[in-house]
């Protein structure tokens, strides 16, 4: 059994044929992950006890003549911004270094109900704020494709464990690209579903109108199976969608003839690079499968970064107000008054990027600036969403790059926060519009760095997105004959 090559289907058939037990898979995955982790720092800690108990439950069920479950025995890593009962959840922050949640996120409950085995918590940028995973208080994650480079962020650990093979699939979260960008940097599949498709109950809030939970996997089928297991209405999250979850498996027929694909011209101007060339080879491959390709326009794209960094910082400054030294484990010593306790605890507990976003968010919401910033940004957000609605009147899906460049070196962009923010240009628009989008591997640069192709579809059209991505993958990606 080679843990690093296992798929969901492979594990299910192995369990049914009694080639191995869920406990054997779990023990092998834990041993492999613990041995490999010093290279990447992708796991913050392992939940061995809970994992083995879950694996034993799967084995007991099979022994009693039951089915393994859709994710039976599958070793999963969970980003450390998603709470796990009894298993430390730090959000990559000193502030929550000792926080042990008293409950499970709905996504976690559903994973285990489907038979999955959660083996550990994945490193990430502090409170999911960052594009490189360098903002973790517990050290950066290194990219398995090149250990001198970042894995992307903020779900850098979730992407790296899947690329490294130390988990079969993982959960991440996406607010402005935090699933798709690390997926593209690490050469794996990463999916941001429709806003509300997956319950956020138990996802530590960063920017509530933008936050999503979504899957990472080494192939499109596994990502779809993981999404199917966690999607659907949850009464614990009032923003979760009522729409029924379609059968993604059935949608992946390999047949994409006649699908209309739009290339938004704003995403390709100035992209004279290896990344641009690889994406165009991907588009050519889709044409060969019978897709119709046309240029479309999303004219409000140039305002998206400004719009996003107003809304996300405003919401973050509000959401992070709860870390005040009263409830969540950390309180700074020498704080004789309530006010000093707030200030000192927050000053000591938050890292530089969190402080920057709290400050920007507080500024744009402060007296006299609300209309000029927050309200303006919400109007621009409407324009961005309208652009997409118009485009989806003409095409079934949009294809774009995920990032303007592949994985960069550790430290390369740390001193220039604006440059880091600007690199999110292709991913934040999907979050602002609330539409599903994903990154699917689209070849590598001459230096061997993976590049991801982004596919976006209209609200709740994940099935079309998976169909396209799976057909692309099945036929050899950019090397399609």
């Amino acid at each position, binding site marked *: 059994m080679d843990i690093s090559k296992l798929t969901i289907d492979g594990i299910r058939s192995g369990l049914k044929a009694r080639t191995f037990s869920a406990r054997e898979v779990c023990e092998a995955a834990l041993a492999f992950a613990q041995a490999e982790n010093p290279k990447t720092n992708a796991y913050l800690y392992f939940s061995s006890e809970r994992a083995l108990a879950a694996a034993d439950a799967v084995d007991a069920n099979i022994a009693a003549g039951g089915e393994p479950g859709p994710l039976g025995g599958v070793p999963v890593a969970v980003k450390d911004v998603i709470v796990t009962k009894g298993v430390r959840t730090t959000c990559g922050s000193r502030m929550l270094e000792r926080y042990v949640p008293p409950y499970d996120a709905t996504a976690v409950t559903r994973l285990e109900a489907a038979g999955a085995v959660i083996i550990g918590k994945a490193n990430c940028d502090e409170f999911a704020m960052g594009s490189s995973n360098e903002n973790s208080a517990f050290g950066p994650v290194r990219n398995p494709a090149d250990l001198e480079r970042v894995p992307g962020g903020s779900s850098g650990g979730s992407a790296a464990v899947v690329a490294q093979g130390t988990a079969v699939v993982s959960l991440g979260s996406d607010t402005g690209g935090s699933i798709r960008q690390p997926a593209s940097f690490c050469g794996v599949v990463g999916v941001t579903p429709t806003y509300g498709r997956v319950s956020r109950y138990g996802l530590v809030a960063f920017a509530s109108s933008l936050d999503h939970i979504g899957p990472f996997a080494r192939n499109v089928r596994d990502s779809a199976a993981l999404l199917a297991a966690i999607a659907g209405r949850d009464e614990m999250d009032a923003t979760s969608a009522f729409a029924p979850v379609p059968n993604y498996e059935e949608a992946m027929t390999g047949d994409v003839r006649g699908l209309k694909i739009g290339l938004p011209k704003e995403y390709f101007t100035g992209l004279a690079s290896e990344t641009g060339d690889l994406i165009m080879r991907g588009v050519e491959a889709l044409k060969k499968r019978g897709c119709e390709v046309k240029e479309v326009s999303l004219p409000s794209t140039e305002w998206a970064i400004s719009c996003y960094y107003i809304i996300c910082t405003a919401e973050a400054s509000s959401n992070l107000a709860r870390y005040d030294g009263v409830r969540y484990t950390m309180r700074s010593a020498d704080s004789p008054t309530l006010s000093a*306790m707030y200030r000192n605890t927050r000053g000591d507990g938050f890292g530089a990027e969190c402080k920057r976003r709290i400050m920007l968010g507080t500024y744009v919401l402060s007296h006299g600036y609300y209309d000029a910033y927050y309200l303006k940004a919400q109007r621009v957000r409407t324009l961005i969403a309208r652009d997409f609605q118009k485009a989806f009147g003409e095409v079934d899906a949009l294809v774009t790059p995920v990032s303007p460049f592949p994985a960069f070196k550790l430290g390369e962009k740390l001193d220039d926060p604006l440059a880091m923010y600007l690199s999110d240009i292709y991913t934040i628009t999907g979050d602002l519009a609330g539409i599903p989008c994903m990154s699917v591997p689209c070849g590598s640069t001459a230096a061997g760095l993976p590049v991801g192709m982004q596919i976006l579809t209209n609200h709740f059209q994940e099935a079309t997105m998976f169909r396209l991505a799976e057909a692309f993958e099945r036929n050899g990606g950019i090397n399609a004959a």
Partner: protein
Amino acid sequence: MKITEEQVRYVADLANLRLTPDEVSRMARDMESILGHIDKLNELDTAGVPAMAQVLFDADETATLRADAERNVLPNEIALANAPQGGGGFFKVPKVIER
């Protein structure tokens, strides 16, 4: 747009965030550069465009309401387990009166 250290200290005060003198000067630089970029939004005419108040909601307005019935809640001791300082079933904090 110029962001002064005085403005930074004012905003930090609103956010209940203690910043060191070094952090204040760095923050002034960073905020100036980021807000300088963000200010370009003012070039865009959004007259008549409604502000997005809800991203997406696919059901009746009352769909998320449930019966007002008692349900299991976290027991007091578990809810307090992560408190830096608890006691007597409460979160303990320093004196509230003095600032």
